[in-house]
């Protein structure tokens, strides 16, 4: 029985003439019912059949792989000479060979030419690979940056960037907190080193021309519990302010030079270019005076921070990427300064 599943065998027998008349009739009948296979039978018949005689064989040498040509003894000597590998006796052997066959000098020369001459190729991006700090100083750097920010904030933040008006007499409470630092590198070490720096300063202050004392207070009470009254004699509640400084990711201490006119500078890049030097000088002075005057009893750290502040004030350009955000609720006011993705400084004022 011929089917579409087994017809190939019958086709081959048919083409080779091995079928009986009955089978041939069957095939012809099958082809009538399956005309599409007639083409296939024709193709079968046109396929050349390779007949191999008993003593004939097919040449499969083309399948062979190219064998590696091994070095001759002389080639070993040539190469050994240019590589400086030859012993004295080998060198003698080579020299005597060359004396006998001077034409071989040319071959030796061709081996000598295989020495590559180093080309000068410059890797142009070296500076981007360099690092500017080590983790060991990280704590001091971050502390220094924080201190400088604090110095500048202390002098500038509450002035809303309009005017440089340092506070004079003090009578208020500041709690300044350095948030835990996270960086990509040396996380563990930094974690250990970055214990929160809590500098609590009780600063008594009052703005001489802005506030007047509450006439009901006694002198002693005034010293300890300042209640300030505006000129209009309206009593304002005591304020608690918290500054949180958070450093994110890599700390490239390109900060510092936050300055009262920073808002103007952001809005006017041209001003930034022209004012940069003055701003840096100002930042430097303020940072230094803060460090010298306010961090008392921490002379060693102060020295480090002093040096850092001075250095950074000289080097660091004014950041272009400063955002100032303000949020206000019934209970507190939060002012955030974001400097790129590097720092965010929050000043929380609880009313």
């Amino acid at each position: 029985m011929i089917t579409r599943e087994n017809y190939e065998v019958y086709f081959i027998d048919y083409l080779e003439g091995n079928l009986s008349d009955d089978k041939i009739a069957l095939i012809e009948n099958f082809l009538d019912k399956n005309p599409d296979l007639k083409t296939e039978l024709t193709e079968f018949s046109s396929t050349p059949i390779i007949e191999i005689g008993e003593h004939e064989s097919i040449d499969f040498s083309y399948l062979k792989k190219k064998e590696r040509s091994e070095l001759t003894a002389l080639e070993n000597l040539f190469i050994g000479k240019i590589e400086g590998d030859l012993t004295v006796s080998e060198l003698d052997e080579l020299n005597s060979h060359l004396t006998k066959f001077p034409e071989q000098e040319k071959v030796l020369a061709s081996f000598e030419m295989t020495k590559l001459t180093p080309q000068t190729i410059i890797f142009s991006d070296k500076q981007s690979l360099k690092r500017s700090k080590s983790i060991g100083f990280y704590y001091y750097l971050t502390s220094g940056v924080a201190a400088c920010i604090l110095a500048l904030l202390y002098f500038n933040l509450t002035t809303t960037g309009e005017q440089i008006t340092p506070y004079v007499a003090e009578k208020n409470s500041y709690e300044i907190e350095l948030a835990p630092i996270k960086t990509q590198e040396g996380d563990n070490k930094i974690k250990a080193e970055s214990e929160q720096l809590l500098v609590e300063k009780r600063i008594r202050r009052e703005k001489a021309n802005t506030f007047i004392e509450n006439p009901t207070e006694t002198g002693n009470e005034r010293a300890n519990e300042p209640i300030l009254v505006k000129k209009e004699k309206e009593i304002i509640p005591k304020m608690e302010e918290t500054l949180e400084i958070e450093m994110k990711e890599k700390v490239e201490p390109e900060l510092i030079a936050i300055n009262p006119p920073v808002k103007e500078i952001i809005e006017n890049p041209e001003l930034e270019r022209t004012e940069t030097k003055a701003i840096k000088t100002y930042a430097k002075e303020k940072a230094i005076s803060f460090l010298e005057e306010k961090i008392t009893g921490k002379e060693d750290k102060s020295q480090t921070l002093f040096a850092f502040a001075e250095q950074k004030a000289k080097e660091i350009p004014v950041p272009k990427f400063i955002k100032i955000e303000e949020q206000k609720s019934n209970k507190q006011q939060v002012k955030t300064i974001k400097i790129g993705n590097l720092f965010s400084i929050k000043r929380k004022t609880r009313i």
Partner: protein
Amino acid sequence: MNVKEYNSSIDLYADNLYRFVVKNMKNSEKAQDVVQDVFEKVWKKRKDIDAEKIKSYLFTAAYHTMLDVLKKEKRITNFESERDFEKSHTEAYSGINEILEAALETLPEIQKNVILLRDYEGYSYEEIGEITNLKNSQVKVYIYRARKSLQKYLVSIETVLG
């Protein structure tokens, strides 16, 4: 090694490292990536690296990083096998260095690497062995075979060019 030594290693070796990698990869952007990866690795492990051995460390790291990249690209299909020399000789060569550059491309990857380390960087068999994880004797064999192949190429070019 400290930061200063790290930065100094960039000045001293970044060019050579880049040359070694770009000669192999034939792609300047990928070669730059490899060099950056290598220095990144060095920076992360700098505390464990002896500054005096930095060059060897750099080339070893570059060699293996480069192989990883090439393997990913499936370029190394026949790493150990000889390549066919029957390349077109119709290109116009302006000098021996150009011919050698072309000849270099006919070498198996490993031979090319050892020759570049030998001729460009002046490394000994032992140092090349450390970089490539080969025995000294293997390094020597590869260098000898490479020289033979390069010489054969030069002679064939000379014959073609008359």
